[in-house]
């Protein structure tokens, strides 16, 4: 009965209720849309980082945090051990090294990522960004970025010499260009090359070394268990076993900060909305002072009247948040299917924290977070009704009846 009254009371002033609910709904929808697009782009960023410069589990030399050229020996033994940690997972070994790449027409400073041909093509990363030629197959194959291809003026089949130094010796090694990739990020396309692991091992002069041995799961969500299992498996071995977070601290930090900024901003926005709700609600209560006085005189207790007001507030919040969530879900769906294409304004690719992101952002459902925020917004709206309800409970019937409202 209270519920029915509360419900009808809301619609006495249709326009006002509608405006208030719209404000709540818009705030809620904006939050949902932000969550969706953030989740989508973060997941993409993590996946790209994992496939290009890390893994879900990363095994590397103990104690080195920022030296990209640290090497761990016995890499194949580590790879076997890591493989045993999870089913349906791939293990990859990589070497990172820098050097000078020269062609007949020019030279360029490059960063090389040396990978195992077969595994790397399954895992993705630069394999997905190929625009011409093939992936590496023989030990003499090399893949370069589109920017480099232009600067060095080479096409598939032509010769390239990689010069590097390791352990005091300068080495140069001949390659043939096998394919070209393009990410859209200038600082990657003009800087990165992919070569076979064996070739890099020759250059650095260590036949079983790797910079990192990484595990790539099919189900990305299972990474915590995989990391734990790997840590157990590698106990006593002189290596560091890291999760992708530990291996890509910059990416992790970026995501945390970006998420904080986006969602924090929106929540503050929602506070503004709730101030409007407070105003409206207070007024709708004050103008019914006389009516409440009448209710009291026929025997309704102040607490019950207060409860009525609270229920009205709850209904307003509930329907506002519901409406907003529906709106948010609809827009989210569109973002998931169509995405936001910023490639015109940002170029095709963009590098953040060492990882290349596509500039066409797609959203992804993050239902748990959307639910949490829906509840939070409902609570914030509900709080706006508490003070008016309290005021109502302190009403004196005679004073109230004297009121003209």
């Amino acid at each position, binding site marked *: 009965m209270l519920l029915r009254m509360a419900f009808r009371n809301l619609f006495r002033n249709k326009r*006002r209720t509608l*405006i*208030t609910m719209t*404000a709540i709904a*818009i*705030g809620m929808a904006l939050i949902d849309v932000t969550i969706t697009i953030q989740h989508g782009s973060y997941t993409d960023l993590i996946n790209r980082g994992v496939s290009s410069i890390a893994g879900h589990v990363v095994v590397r030399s103990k104690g080195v945090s920022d*030296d*990209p050229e640290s090497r761990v020996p016995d890499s194949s033994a580590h790879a076997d051990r890591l493989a045993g940690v999870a089913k349906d997972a791939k293990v990859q070994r990589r070497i990172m090294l*820098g*050097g*000078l*790449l*020269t062609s007949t*027409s*020019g*030279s*360029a*400073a490059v*960063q090389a990522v040396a990978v195992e041909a077969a595994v790397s093509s399954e895992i993705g990363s630069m394999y997905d960004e190929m625009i011409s030629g093939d992936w590496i197959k023989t030990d003499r194959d090399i893949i370069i970025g589109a920017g480099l291809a*232009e*600067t060095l*003026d080479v096409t598939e089949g032509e010769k390239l010499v990689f*010069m*590097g*130094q*390791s*352990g*005091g010796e*300068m080495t140069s090694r001949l390659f043939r260009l096998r394919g070209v990739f393009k990410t859209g990020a*200038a*600082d990657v396309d003009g*800087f990165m090359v992919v070569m076979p692991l064996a070739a890099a091992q020759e250059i650095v002069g260590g036949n079983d070394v790797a910079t990192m041995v990484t595990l790539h799961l099919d189900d990305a969500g299972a990474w915590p268990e995989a990391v734990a299992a790997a840590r157990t498996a590698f106990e006593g071995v002189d290596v560091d076993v890291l999760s992708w977070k530990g291996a890509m*601290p*910059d990416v992790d*930090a*970026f995501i*945390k*900060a970006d998420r904080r*900024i986006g969602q924090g*901003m929106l929540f503050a*926005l929602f*506070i*503004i*909305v709730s*101030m*409007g709700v407070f*105003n*409206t609600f*207070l*007024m709708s209560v004050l103008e019914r002072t006389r009516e409440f006085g009448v209710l009291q005189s026929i025997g309704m207790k102040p607490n019950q009247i207060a409860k009525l007001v609270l229920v009205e507030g709850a209904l307003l919040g509930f329907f506002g948040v519901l409406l907003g969530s529906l709106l948010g879900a609809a827009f989210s769906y569109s973002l998931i299917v169509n995405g936001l294409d*910023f490639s015109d*304004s*940002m*170029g095709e690719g*963009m*590098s*953040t*924290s*060492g990882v290349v992101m596509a500039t066409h952002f797609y959203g992804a459902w993050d239902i748990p977070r959307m639910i949490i925020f829906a509840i939070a917004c409902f609570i914030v709206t509900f709080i706006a009704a508490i003070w008016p309800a309290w005021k109502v409970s302190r009403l004196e019937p005679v004073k109230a009846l004297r009121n*003209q409202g």
Partner: protein
Amino acid sequence: MWWSLAWRNLWRQRRRTLVTCMAMAIGIAMTMGIICFQDGFNAELGRVMVDQRLGHIQINHPDYPGRRALHDVLDGVDARVASLEADEMVSNLTVRLNGPALVGGDKKSEGAFLVGVDPKREDAFTQLSTMVIEGRYLADGASQEMVLGVKLAENIEVTVGDVAVVVTQGADGSMGNELFTVVGLLSTGDERVDRGGGQVHLSDMQALLVLDDAAHEITLRTPDADTLGTTKPIISSNAGAAGAVVRTWGEVDPQIQKMMAMNQSMNFVIMMIVLAVAGIVVLNTMMMVVYERTHELGVLKALGMKPSGVMKLIAMEALCLTTVSVAIGVLIGGLLDWYIVVQGVKFLDGDLTFAGVRFAGRLHGLFEPAMLFNIVLSSYLIAMFAAGWPAWRASRMLPTEAMREV
């Protein structure tokens, strides 16, 4: 007296007025803070990319753009420099010869983006000597000196005072190497320098690459960054640009320019959203105000106040409300901005690299008076828009209806 009436009407319901004002004020302060932060981000992006790397205008060999081939150099560089520096449209100028190289110490080498520069001009252009964190910058007139990005130096395990080997491929295809003394380490914010680059004297680089009196870029800064469209033709007509291609920084790196432009439009979008929400709050309040004073407005109409007069009265109240909100909002926002600009915001544990620029985890904002003006103006516009409908309704109400409502 109408302003007096409008002002006093605001305070009839002190609490409600304050709540509404606070809502709008928070919106304004929030917008000010966000934009200040974003502008700071953009400014740092610009500082590294435009001030350091790209300059305002770049002059290159006609075939250089795109391929950036080693042999596509400007010839007669000394003469060109003299001619350009005489032009009043040139406030700073630097000359660069790019030589990708293998740079290494005893044990390790890395590929590096080495640039041959004239230290005096380069320092005047980029203030690089202020970004030397160990040792010193290149000395004018010296030779066989090198400064390296701090991360690069770390990776190849060299430090100030060490001798490093530089291996390059010359323009004639031959491989050459030279020994250089590392005199300083740089931390510039440009990852291309800090992680994988360095600088040597122009003459040394010219020798290494077997390119006499040549450079890949003559990069210059003009007095007014916003009028590059008109400055470009003037530079092009200078003798120093003869036979060369002249480009603005936006043409050299469109991606960065677009990114910075996008950041600006994001600011606008955010402002609109926040203020729109605040506007809804104002709308709500004005509607309440009109409703509560229905009878009183009826009396005023009975006295002979015209509908337009009623509308004006409501509008005035909305203006007063907005002014209070703006005052509070700008005050809070000003304090917030002061904090963001002076203290900076720690939004990250560690550093962030974005588009090749490294941002320290603590970012300092940038305050632009134009932005404040925009926000204030938009607040008024939105408030007036929001109050428009209640005001119109109030004016159209028949006096008898109004008074019967009681």
